[in-house]
């Protein structure tokens, strides 16, 4: 039943924020039975403190291993929804999907949270293995995001390694111009353009002009 995650990303981690000790323990125990690591926090504030203490927590880069946050919607102190909003604002939920745990009567709030970008919500009492399945899906999504991030970082580095002339050629290729026109524009031979093109594709790890355009678009965006 368990999913396979890219091994080079490290061990997945499930963060558990719930003010009920019993529920936290029980879910941790359940996750453990499915060979998943978990880390429990008794309140939203405690979780924020833990994040603040970790120097690796940088918006846009953290987490580096697949992660998922299981968040109780209704807690004493800061509510789950408020914590979610704060994490969202800091850009920490892109690679860490959030699953809400809701009690009786909180479903509309949970639905609203999903509309604002939460991964899912699960009503208490939950069907336990279904919950774990959903957590694993969330972890997969997290892993995919982390992989995409790393690739993008690699390509950005390649982009920085291009020479000035290669960047000029690349800009024209991205506009969809054929080699002949590029050669005329830059007053170089078609042959030289072809050499440049091959080197650019090699450095950025792309196979076509379309892929190159997408990459540029993604890095700029």
């Amino acid at each position, binding site marked *: 039943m368990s999913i396979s995650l890219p091994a080079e990303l490290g061990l997945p981690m499930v963060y558990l924020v719930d003010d009920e000790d019993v529920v936290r*323990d029980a879910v941790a125990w*359940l996750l453990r039975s499915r060979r998943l690591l978990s880390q429990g926090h008794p309140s939203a504030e405690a979780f924020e403190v833990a994040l603040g203490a970790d120097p690796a927590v940088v918006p846009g880069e953290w987490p580096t291993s697949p992660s998922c946050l299981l968040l109780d919607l209704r807690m004493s102190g800061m509510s789950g929804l408020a914590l979610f909003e704060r994490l969202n604002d800091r850009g920490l939920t892109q690679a860490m999907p959030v699953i809400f745990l809701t009690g009786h*009567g909180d479903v509309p709030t949970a639905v609203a949270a999903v509309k604002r970008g939460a991964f899912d919500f699960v009503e*208490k009492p939950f069907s*336990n293995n279904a919950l774990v399945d959903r957590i694993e899906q969330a972890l997969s999504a997290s892993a995919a995001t982390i992989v995409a991030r790393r690739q993008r970082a690699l390509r950005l580095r390649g982009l920085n390694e291009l020479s000035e002339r290669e960047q000029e050629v690349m800009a024209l290729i991205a506009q969809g111009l054929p080699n002949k026109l590029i050669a005329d524009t830059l007053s170089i031979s078609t042959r030289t353009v072809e050499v440049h093109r091959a080197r650019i594709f090699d450095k950025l790890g792309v196979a076509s002009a379309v892929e190159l355009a997408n990459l540029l678009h993604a890095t700029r965006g």
Partner: protein
Amino acid sequence: MNPPNTGAIPLHSVESDEWPRPRRLRIVLWTALVVLLLAAQTLLVVLAFHYRSSRTQESVEANAAAASGELAQLLAKDLQAMLGMPGVGASPTAWRTRAEQLLVARPELLRFERRDAALKIVDAVDTRARAPLFAQVARDGVQVDTDLACAASQRRGGPTYSQSFFVPQSDGMGLEVMDLCIAEREGDHVVGFLIASYALSGLLDQLSVQALAPGHDLSFIEADGTRLAHGRMHVGAGVYHASRMIDLPGTAMQLRVDSAATPPSLVPDLVTGLVIGLSLTLFGVVVLLARDVRKRARAEGALADALAFRKAMEDSVVTGLRARDLQGRTTYVNPAFCAMVGFGPDELVDHNPPPYWPPEQLAEYQQRQDARLASAPGAHSREAFETTFVRKSGERFPAMVFEAPLLDSAARHTGWMSAVLDLSAQRRVEEVSRQQQDRLQATARLATAGEMASLLSHELNQPLSAIAAYATGTLNMMDAQARGEPPEPELWPLLHEAARRIAEQAERAGRVIKSVHDFVRRREHAREAVSADLLIDAVLPLVRLQARKSGTRIELELGAPAPRVVCDRAMVEQVLLNLTRNGIQAMQAVASGSEPVLTLRVQQTHPQWVRVSIEDRGPGVDDEVARQLFTPFFTTRSDGMGLGLSVCRTIVEQHGGALEFVNLRDANGVVCGAEFRFTLPAALTR
């Protein structure tokens, strides 16, 4: 005089049609009166003056006539005497003697002269009464006029007077002298002249008029107004005078009589004084009258103001005002009262009984009115009572009436003044607030139930979720073991731990359930022994509110003393409220001819049981409805939830009692109402 009444000004400007015309007329009349009075008084004074002036003038005129006549006579006598004097042929001695005689006899004559035909003086005699006339100046120097007169006498042949001329005298004064020249003729020839000199003042002195009319000044005046000679008196005031022309041969003179009387002056004159005094008195009376009229006008204005003020007040108040005389006839109503009952003033005033009394209660109202009218005015100076009136539309409305005796200016009791307040709006507000309260209570109950459910589910969710998680985890581990996956290092302790936690959480869930049960239990312990009339009293205000809206009468039969019951007060009060409301609504639903009456009865039917009945006169409960009457969510009303009777039965049964109903039937066996009754355990008597 007094400033105009400023308070009346706005009133005038508002009701411009009513006020200025009489005011202007009054001003015109008063002005005319004053002008006429002034004219009459002036005329009187002028006439009085004029009368007196003309009297004085008349006397002056008469004196002037007498004086001129006497003067003519005097001169005529003198002339005769002179004509009788010896002529040219006579001896000078005889002439002189005669002349001297004449001069003595006639003091007005100053000198006689005899002249020849060539006007040479032959002889002259001067009077001895005074110095010779021509002592100061020579005769030759002043005889031009004399010569002219003699020439005229010679020509005409008769005596001729000369123009008067001035002869200075030794005393520094002078005399105005007039000569008379008489030509002596022999045949047709003039042989000589006799000349007599008159002193003009001497002439005047000889007039006896002076003695007869003292206070009159006589004088001769030349044609150009120059005064030639005065009489002895110099008293003329120059106001009343008369002149007479004295025509003499050869000359003419004016004789002027001047009265010493001054023009009539206002003060010393009795007639004028009387007239003026009367006028002043008359003016005084007029002024006093005017003042009185003005005072009256002011009082009238103030009265009109007060009336207008009172009318505005009556028109503006929202309280209905009604006045009745001692016979009960309406004598006055204000607009608010008309608006309240919908009848116009014509339909209300002088109508007895008034049209706003409900026809079916006419007798009762008449009785009440008679009782009130018969009572002494001091008995209740300001009495309030609540009653029901009918609008013209036929709608009944509750009204609060305050009555006070109406006294006239002589403090006689003439009737009653009532202030009437329409209470229907207030009743509507009460009704709305009652409905809101009902809704609020229902909502509150629902909210409590919802909260309870939420709390319960939360309390149970936690242990149940935990149990499920431990159980699933345990199963997962066992499955993994069964699949031959790498074993957990300490599987058994883990499973043991899970099982222990499952037991723990199951126990926790059990505790939650037990606490709910305890809560329900506690309500049972809330029962207390309470007198049944206290229960009824607690709900009666709410029941009365509903009853008043529908016109239902509430009858209570509680027994004395009311039996005591053991119950949860709040619950039983809820039952009473539900059943009474059902009863009232049942009677409202059908427009039966009988009066809606709701009877609440409490009886001790058994040593251990007390029965509470709620009896209405509605249409009863038909069999179809009766079968489902106590089923939850069954209702005959569109707005009902169908829980009322079912809840009531549950509550009663919790107390160990029973809730049932019977249809009431009249003597003919026709259903005439329904009775719902329930039993409650009686409190043990001590």
